């Protein structure tokens, strides 16, 4: 057991249906890395943490690729890992610490992606109840359909719609209160 191997053990990642032959992991990884990183950035609010979450999610995926790769939607599975992982302060705390230890000397991230400039609205999103925040990020950042979001979040499409409506209502109210957020 290693600390890195605990992600799927600490965070329940319910399997999705296994329906097909696994595609090449490399191709999957190259296609999904950036959107999954984006999801992690939005949900964690921190680039270093997002890097960690993304790497660990793909690492877990790689380890189980024989199984995950044959699922109907491996992309939904890796997003579920990230979504659940970003909820846990336990993971986030450990990831931030490791990121700090590994990546440099500062508590502040100054790396290539100017995350802060893009996070004003996403910060508001992150203040939403967690399922609502995940729904918004998956739909408007990753461009997922309601059906795909439902698969990631392991809920019904109707529930996704409820999360979406409530989230947009809250954000609209905040937008009116605070002016332009982005």
């Amino acid at each position: 057991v290693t600390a890195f191997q605990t992600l799927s053990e600490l965070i329940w990642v319910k399997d999705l249906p296994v329906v097909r032959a696994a595609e090449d992991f490399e191709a999957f990884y190259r296609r999904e890395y950036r959107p999954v990183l984006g999801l992690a950035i939005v949900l964690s609010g921190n680039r270093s943490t997002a890097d960690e979450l993304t790497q660990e999610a793909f690492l877990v995926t790689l380890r189980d690729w024989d199984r995950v790769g044959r699922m109907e939607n491996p992309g939904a599975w890796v997003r579920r890992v990230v979504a659940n992982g970003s909820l846990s302060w336990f993971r986030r705390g450990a990831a931030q610490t490791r990121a700090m230890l590994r990546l440099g000397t500062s508590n502040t991230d100054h790396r290539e992606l100017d995350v802060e400039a893009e996070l004003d609205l996403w910060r508001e999103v992150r203040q939403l109840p967690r399922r609502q925040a995940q729904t918004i990020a998956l739909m408007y950042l990753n461009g997922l359909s309601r059906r795909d979001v439902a698969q990631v979040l392991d809920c019904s499409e109707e529930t996704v719609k409820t999360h979406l409506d409530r989230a947009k209502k809250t954000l609209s109210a905040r937008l009116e209160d605070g002016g332009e957020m982005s």
Partner: protein
Amino acid sequence: MNIDDELRQAGDRLNAKLEEVTVPQVRQRGTRIGRTLAVAAALTIMIGGSVLWLTRGGDDGPVVAATSTSTTIDGAQPGPADEPQPAGPMVVIAEGTFVGADEPWRLSAFISEEDDLCMRLRGMTCGPVPNVSNPLSAPSGTTSEDPSEPRLSCAYGAVHATVFEVILTLSDGSIVKPPIHGGGDIPANFYAYCWAGAPNYASITAVDANGDTLAESTSTASSSTTTTTGAELPAAATVWSIAYPPTWHRADSELMPNLAWNSLTLATFPLREGGSKCAHMPENALRDLSPGDALVSIFLNARPGIGAPLWPEDGFNDTVFPESTATTDAHECADRPDLEVHWGLWSLNGNGHYVLVVFGPDVANDRRAQTWEILSSLRTSETSTATNGKLCIVTRPPQPGLAPPAPYHPNPSDESTVWYGTTALWTPLASDATYGPRKSVWWSSDFGGGADEPTPDISVTYQRLDAKTPVIRSRSPGTNANTAEDGWFMIADIDPEPRGCWKVTATYREATLSYVAYIP
């Protein structure tokens, strides 16, 4: 613009930015790592049977991921075959012994010339691991998630159900109810890694809100319980000092009793210990924090200082230590999204110290400045060693000291001391926070002198902070005294002799004054 458009545009902008991100390469193990690994900031955690190896190169370097197996982990033992052995000195971060077992555990780190950090963990497992059936999601190892934290006995898992609480029954019959994070429609993570020195758990039970058992698992009781070294203050104790006004409230490690780190918390309001949600944050104190209040927590020697910014020589302020932009554990543990939280790891004397500074939403500027000044005043005169041993953080009186009202002299007759306290109760403390033989002497503007009050009702207690010993109390009412220079004052009937870290508290009428001193 409506919210739909706002969100779409925000998504497009972030996706455009993401296109600029270089996708790291993934390689299976066996790829020649060579120089890449040598310059990588590497963190390797190896516990027991299998090893997962993850390194990250520089900004343009590859990510190398692989799995391997290894049977024994030793601080001096090479890892996988192609792992370069860090060349630098080994630093022992923490160590201990399993009671009744042969295996000691030791957490150590190598520091290479490139400032790589490679942590090694030996023997951190805590006995047999139960296989827990659903809905408990197999906590397949009782290991520390974060090996640099000197926690000895650990359990964790995820509960895919709406649980009310998780109960760990330890093999000695005691019960631990770890905090649960999540719940409801998301998996609830639980973990209980804070019982240093405690035995293995004998059973683990998840119950719902009605008290009905959802799942239960029992493990074989093991003799491999754990203990810590350094429970008593070591001979070469590291004595820290910090300057804070007597009107601030202070709590030491008792505020977060389940946290293994030494901690100090100072706040502008009374500090309530514990909490039901988080063991690693002053949860109840944060819940009590009013809009105008401030709080500082310092978690000393929490980890190596490598990689952390240096403790600022010119002191802390909002610029040096900016507010955390993301939601922090302090927000979540106290359910207080309104708090202004500054949270980070800082390096002082080679060790890493977590610092938590919290302001209420309406804190005044002078209180904010005072808070930074207090944090900046933390000092230690010697290079400290990371250890499980208790540290002593003594009170250093702020300069200038209290200026008592007339007719009292503005400074104590002993020039190496300054007045500390309030006009209701004050005492001299050494400017450098050292402690020499002294009587327990106290001044108060409410004390009218020997004629009015020959046996003043002053009571003093000495409470050990570095060991569990009985509280020493003054034996009888005090006596009065007078000198030409110092005027009327009170002497408490108490003279503690034992060395150690003491919290001294005096009470006279409605006034209370505390300070912490290390008696060598």
